[in-house]
């Protein structure tokens, strides 16, 4: 079943990569260049999965997670945090903010697909 995913990252290259990969798998993908942008888009619509970078200029991924969890429609939207290393401190913050999971950059396309599939299977 086709799902809608939003990719939030300040790097257009990453957004493109994620978008391309997931669309090949039949999902619909929308994009946001930054946490604030994503929040504005998601205030009025639901998605099946949020994949967000952690480090972004105006609003970072952790803050975005926190804010999304405060909105009724996104109480249980799966949120994956993208990080460049397995940072226990960041993971702790992410967990506390309510994120669903994390994924380490750099990742291969098939890895992304595998993780996304796992998320949708839960």
């Amino acid at each position, binding site marked *: 079943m086709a799902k809608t995913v939003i990719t939030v990252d*300040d*790097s*257009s*290259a*990453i*957004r*493109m*990569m994620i978008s391309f990969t997931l669309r090949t798998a039949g999902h619909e993908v929308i994009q946001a*260049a*930054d946490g604030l942008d994503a929040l504005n888009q998601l205030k009025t619509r639901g998605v099946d999965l949020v994949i967000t970078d952690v*480090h*972004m*200029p105006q609003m970072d991924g952790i803050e975005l997670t926190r804010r999304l969890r405060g909105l009724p429609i996104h109480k249980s939207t799966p949120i*994956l945090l993208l990080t*460049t290393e*397995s940072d*226990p401190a960041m*993971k702790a913050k*992410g*967990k506390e903010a309510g*994120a*669903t*999971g*994390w*994924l*380490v*950059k*750099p*990742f*291969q396309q*098939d*890895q992304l697909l*595998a*993780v996304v599939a796992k998320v949708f299977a839960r």
Partner: protein
Amino acid sequence: MNEDLQQQLVKELVVESLEGLDTFDQEILAFEHGDETPDTWNNAFRIIHTIKGSSGCIGFPKVESVAHVGESLLSVLRDGHRPADSNIASSLLQYSDALREMMRSIEQTGNEGAADHADLVQNLQALQAGISGAAAPEKPTFGFFGDENTEANQPVTPPASAPQPGAVVKEAPKPSAADSAIRVDVGQIDRLMNLVGELVLARNQIVQATGHLGDPGLLTAVQRVNLITSELQESVMKTRMQPIGNVWSKFPRIIRDLCHELGKDVALVLEGNETELDRTIIEAIKDPMTHLIRNAIDHGIETPDARIAAGKPAQGRLVLRAFHEGGQVNIEISDDGKGIDAARVVEKALQRGLVSPEQAGRMSHREQLDLVFLPGLSTADIVTNVSGRGVGMDVVRTNIEKIGGNVNLDSEPGHGAVIRIKIPLTLAIIPALVVNCGDDRFAIPAASLVELVRIEGDQVARSLEHIHEAPVYRLRGDLLPLVDLAKELGITARRHVEDTLFLVVLQAEGRQFGLVVDNIQDTEEIVVKPLAREMKGLGVYAGATIMGDGKVALILDVVGLARRAALLEESSRHASRESAKQTCAAEGAEESRSLLLARVGRNRIAIPLSCIARLEEIPLSRIENAGHSEVIQYRGRIMSVVRLSAVLGIEGESFGSGAPDCERLMPLVVCALEKDNFGVIVDSIEDIVEEQIRIEAREGQRGILGSAIVRQKVTDLLDVRELARIAV
């Protein structure tokens, strides 16, 4: 072990390990590029082995045990029991980062840090045991919060039971490069530099104070001190110089990681690794260069797919070039990516209110691209999206300008971009020419000096011309714009020698100009001392120095001076082009013009000076044919020439190439009209005059505007415009 010793050991460990890890990275990268040698894995092994040993001894068990795991894997690779592959290489690079992280932690906090890198360790062990398989490594790169049972979140047992691949091989100690070098604290070198600087000043003072004394013994001694000081100075300066390759060595790794992260393929080409720079410059440019490279890869170079769609090879090219020129270090970073669209930059700048529409309208292409360096624009969406985590192009520029350099950008959409950085080799001691202007003395860095010209008496009047009020000097056929130093600085000139003009021909950013001064003294070596911040802003001074007599003298900033005067220069050139267009086309009433008077046969011809670029002499035999026109090879190009005698139908010496004396030199007047040059051949040149003339138009005469009486002779005024049409 006492504290001090411990501290020193720790410092040594950190420095050594970080250096080793850089080399380690290079070995792994070499393998990835297919450039590995039989020594590659050996070297890699040794580096990790050393880290393990020293950290163990100094009291960092965590580092020791992490190093141990890597050492085991590398030992296996070194012995050839397992072939390496790209998975292993990637893991090893991550491993190197982990060790680096630990070293940094030790450096900053004194302890090894909280991370235990358990997952990394586990991965390496798995690789060693040969479990690593398919393209997707099994290392836990993701996880779910609150799911304590997943593999990712399980605690890992310490690697104490890792299989030992046999005794560590003891190698015969090879005399490494490290043995012939010692580590010196940077502060020490700086102190040495200061002392040498002071010594040079004192030497200058001695030379000056004893110059007039006749004592031969004293003079010899002073000479020796002179020589020794110079040599000492050079030697100390050398110790501070490092090849730029030291900074560049980190880039292959950064680029590789970025490419992996962004799915791009970029080849890095480095030219000029050996170019040497002073330490302080190297420190200052590290971060700006890293940022610029990241930018180029993130925003400049497209993904392989996009590149193929654009007709480019899938692999992008990033070229770093470093070279010395004109007393400066030049660094160029060029990529063949999608480039920067100046129009979009202007759009963004307008949007953000950083520039007004009128200003934007008046900007040249270069100036538009330059907007990229404005704070507020740099971290914004210039090409496609938000970039850089807090470090923008404005910071890059500031950092480079802090060390006295400059940076600018050139780009064509679709064809990538080039960033050019120029940094003065501010080694504190430079040779300089001392000149007088007004009551003051100034020093001009010899690196910018082209030549010295002394113009006497009536030659002054003859060679000095004015093109639309800006003075120029005709130096061997070239028109050299002049800058009057006294005028620029707003001081009263004091001509030291009657009737004589002193010109210092200087080079600034590829353009030459002549600086008019009151008097020229000697060249000497001076110590460059920085000016107070406030003075720097004036733009015309590069620093100050203390002369032999103890007085301060200002050092002129040649480029700054040229720029300041260029307000005149630019507008005068523009104006001269404008007036050339007018003069060449117009028939005037009474107007004062500068004219070149020449002879063709028995006729006297006048050509407006403003149309003339150069005066040359060529043998008629150099004239060749191209289509219906006559041309000559001129300065590497093919230039059309017109024989006036032929055009005007006059029998002259230049009429017909079958002339008996083909090798005889004939004057060639190189005319410039808008973009194209063409040459006009006359029989002889008579004079250059400035006259008020009245032109009577004459119909039917091709190439002539009209006639006038110049210096009591009937003279035909050339229609340069028409001549240009005839020529081309």
